[in-house]
């Protein structure tokens, strides 16, 4: 009678753990499919850019990595808010699992940006608003990870990290609107919800497919990481003891 699907059930780590494990292969497979389709469209089919020649093809990873670096931060801030408001166990684990992937996305955004800037602007780096605020995002990720790692009491670590995440969220609109608010070397938004796209449709679709690939990849890796964090943090519970006993000697099922 009462066995209707209940989303809140999965807020308990013991219920979320097997669900996450079951979902990882699907997210990974979908990421590969989107990635191959995006690379095929972007690298093999899309035409040459009339201004930037073939160098523009960096866009197919630069934009997805930059989007994910901002989006992952927003998701972490969301979990931080939930954790601070409702004191849920899962939220701190989610934020912690997402942070390294977010940091890597921010790094990739800066790395590909430097490799794009050198041939187009003649410099690897400028202290302009877009680049500087993205660098601050990378530092926020690193700062969050260092802060959480430095505090032994897990609940205090989650609270301190959550506060840092919420304060730092002000940086996200600064990154996003920096190209509008200030005169920057960085070009304006490639994709806008209000204007029709200025790119060739194969370029646009290649970029969107790559963004989906990065998104699915991030979910898969974060789910892998959160499962380990769950075992670690919940090691004194019966479900983790049962799970550890069922796993082969030092191995994976």
């Amino acid at each position, binding site marked *: 009678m009462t066995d209707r699907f209940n989303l809140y059930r999965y807020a308990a780590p013991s219920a979320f753990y097997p669900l996450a494990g079951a979902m990882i292969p699907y997210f990974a497979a979908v990421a590969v499919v989107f990635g191959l389709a995006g690379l095929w469209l972007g690298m093999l089919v899309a035409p040459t850019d009339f201004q930037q020649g*073939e160098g523009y093809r*960096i866009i197919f990873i630069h934009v997805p990595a930059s989007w994910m670096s901002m989006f992952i931060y927003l998701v972490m801030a969301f979990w931080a808010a939930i954790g601070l408001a409702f004191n849920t166990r899962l939220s701190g684990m989610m934020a912690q699992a997402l942070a390294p992937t977010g940091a890597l996305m921010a790094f990739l955004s800066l790395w590909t940006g430097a490799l794009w800037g050198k041939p187009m602007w003649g410099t690897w780096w400028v202290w302009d608003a877009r680049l500087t605020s993205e660098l601050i995002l990378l530092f926020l990720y690193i700062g969050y990870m260092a802060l959480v790692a430095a505090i032994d009491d897990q609940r205090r670590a989650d609270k301190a990290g959550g506060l840092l995440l919420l304060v730092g969220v002000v940086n996200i609109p600064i990154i996003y609107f920096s190209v509008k608010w200030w005169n920057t070397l960085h070009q304006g938004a490639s994709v806008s919800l209000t204007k029709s796209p200025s790119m060739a449709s194969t370029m646009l679709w290649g970029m969107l497919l790559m963004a989906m690939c990065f998104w699915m*990849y991030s979910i*898969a*890796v974060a789910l*892998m*990481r959160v499962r*380990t964090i769950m075992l670690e943090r919940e*090691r004194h519970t019966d479900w*983790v003891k049962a799970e550890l006993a069922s796993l082969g000697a030092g191995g994976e099922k």
Partner: protein
Amino acid sequence: MIHWNSFSEFLAMGGYGLYVWGSFGVTALIMAIEPIMVARNRKATIARLRRQLRAESRNAAE
């Protein structure tokens, strides 16, 4: 349909090869290494927790 006439043209990327492949190469490297690191960390964590669990149950038995 395919934009390129030859493989060497594809590799050259119109003179931007270093920048384009430098971007894609590092991205591919990170996306290959990160899941491996996470999986290795998981294995190590499981092994450590199992050792701790065994030690605890031994102590409880004594």
